[in-house]
């Protein structure tokens, strides 16, 4: 059906082996930096770079979590609400009169809360079988309500060590948050690449029936994926609360859109089963640097929002073209 010539031509275009988006992304990133730097040299100043990296880690951490879920072919739209709940928990626990809860305990409680929300999501999707978009849309609303519920008034955090978690710099130049991000990345990368669980995740996303026939427990894998995503979102919430030193009910509102864009741009296929964290890393860099770059270039804030939408649409167009090309090449 597809002529020999077309197939050759297409495989020539496909210079980057294994259909990887990453080299393209790196080029895009480099071009972007050059563009922004030429408009406003402040873009590449050390202070600005430090600020970019300190901020993009929250998106990055959430993106890692969402990647795990998307690889199984599902979505999690509730990560923003999970982030908010975790942040509020941190703030609230620091403000209880008369009780001095150790920092480690507070962080663990917040992460456990995230895991619990992830478990709810996982239960609804894996056990009950509701479409993940709908169920996480519902949990988004429910847990956002919880976040507002706990945040009766804005809770401030005055505990210095906690604040330095998010705002401190290692050796004066590397943001602490970057360290957490990298650690999480490495762990998740190793899990995805070298453990059975990681392979199961790819398998469930790629071909559910084959996975079941191969003995993979789809329910358990999907469930764990959502739990991991919830925990990642909670970690992001802790970091955000630490960086801003307070927490309110609106934290994380609307962030799921940005994280979704990062994942799709990073090559995680919407159909599941394809994509690696490497692409997600570069995509995080790109999206983290764009709003900063646009702000420094004096682009009005409304256009910046539109930009993210355009990026998302471009990303999914590219994703679908690659899917088409894959199918063509297979023929």
């Amino acid at each position, binding site marked *: 059906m597809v002529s020999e010539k077309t197939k050759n031509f297409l495989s020539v275009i496909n210079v980057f082996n294994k259909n990887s988006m990453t080299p393209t992304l790196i080029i895009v990133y480099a071009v972007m930096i050059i563009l922004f730097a030429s408009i406003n040299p402040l873009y590449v100043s050390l202070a600005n770079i430090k600020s970019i990296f300190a901020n993009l880690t929250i998106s990055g951490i959430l993106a890692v979590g969402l990647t795990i879920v998307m690889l199984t*072919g599902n979505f999690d739209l509730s990560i923003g609400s999970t982030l908010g709940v975790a942040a509020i928990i941190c703030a609230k626990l620091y403000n209880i009169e008369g009780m001095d809860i150790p920092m480690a305990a507070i962080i663990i409680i917040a992460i456990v809360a995230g895991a619990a929300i992830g478990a709810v999501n996982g239960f*609804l999707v894996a056990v*009950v*079988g*509701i*479409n993940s*978009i*709908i*169920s996480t*849309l*519902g*949990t*988004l*609303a*429910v847990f*956002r*309500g*919880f976040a*507002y*519920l706990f945040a009766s008034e804005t809770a401030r955090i005055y505990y210095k060590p906690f604040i330095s978690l998010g705002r401190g710099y290692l050796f004066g130049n590397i943001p602490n948050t970057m360290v957490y991000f990298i650690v999480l990345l490495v762990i998740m990368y190793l899990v995805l690449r070298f453990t059975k669980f990681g392979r199961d995740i790819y398998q469930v996303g790629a071909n*559910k*029936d084959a996975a079941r026939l191969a003995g993979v427990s789809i329910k358990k894998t999907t469930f764990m994926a959502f739990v991991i995503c919830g925990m990642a979102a909670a970690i992001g919430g802790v970091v955000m609360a630490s960086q801003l030193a307070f927490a309110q*009910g609106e934290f994380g509102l609307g962030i799921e*859109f940005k994280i*979704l864009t990062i994942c*799709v741009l990073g090559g995680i296929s*919407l*159909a*599941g089963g394809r994509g690696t964290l490497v692409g997600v890393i570069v995509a995080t860099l790109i999206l983290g640097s764009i709003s900063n770059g646009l702000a420094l270039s004096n682009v*009005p804030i*409304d*256009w*910046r*929002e*539109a*930009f*993210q*939408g*355009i990026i*998302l*649409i471009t990303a*999914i*167009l590219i994703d*679908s*073209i690659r*899917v*088409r090309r894959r199918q063509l090449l297979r023929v």
Partner: protein
Amino acid sequence: MQDLKTKRKGFKLTDTVILLLILIALVVFFSIANRQFIAYANISTMLKNMVLTGVLALGLTPLMIARGLDISFGSAISMISVIMALLYSKVGMNLWAVLIIGVVIAVVIGFINGLIIEKFDLLPIILTLGMMAILQALAMVFANTYAETYSILMLTDELYYFATRTIFGIPYPLIVFIVLVAVYWFILAKTKVGRTIYLVGANPAVAKLSGIKVKKVKILLYVFMGLSTGIASIIIVALTGVGMSYHGAKLPLPVLSAVLLGGISLMGGAGSVWGTVIGVLIVTIIFNGLSVLNIPSYYIQLFQGLALIIIVAAYEIRNKRAAIH
């Protein structure tokens, strides 16, 4: 990505009965909780909300039956209301011209959505998610650039009459809704076009082999969703008198809930207009009842989310059980 084991069950008579019972229970509950609930003023407020949600839910119904989806309508309404208000109040254009332009823009947006989704075979939710962001941003851009504020007045006699006058005691907007319900019901349940839509949703491959131009049908359905969006924009401007860049922000959750409550399956091929109507009623009653009880809006969203999960879970469990037997 459908499980081998589940079978989609559409909307059956027993479903209607259950939903009606839920509806009655809700009405009773809220009436007892607060007598204001059945006051005339409240009922007319409810009817207004219902019309807005209802028009959009009706537009979504055939689209979702055919496995399409559109969540960009909220932002589309925001943008169109802003554009209409600007054209009428700042540029001084004729009211009817403004309204027609608004509807045309809505239809064009629907067409673009449908075209891109079908031509490139994209997941509708993602594309319309991106569209939603772009349109929302454009709404804010237009409002801020040409009016320096997010809310632009658009007060006209004609729209005021439309919003407030009644005929035989029924407000005009409600008549619009009833007419639309009748039209949609007739087309979906009684005509070949309707059956085509169900087939396209239930089994696109078979539909294509039967000679149905699946892509064209779906694009057309997106266009009609655009039409609903346009009508809803006019209604919202008539009811509130302003064009705001936040008009549509809170709309997707209730509308989507209403459609899903009513039995439309995300997998397509199932559902009916009556289900959607009941879904709209339930969602409006929950929202309105909770407002009357003075519950803050974010809790209401919490309950709507909860209701969505519970009902969809119930459908899912019922489907699974049906498949096993």
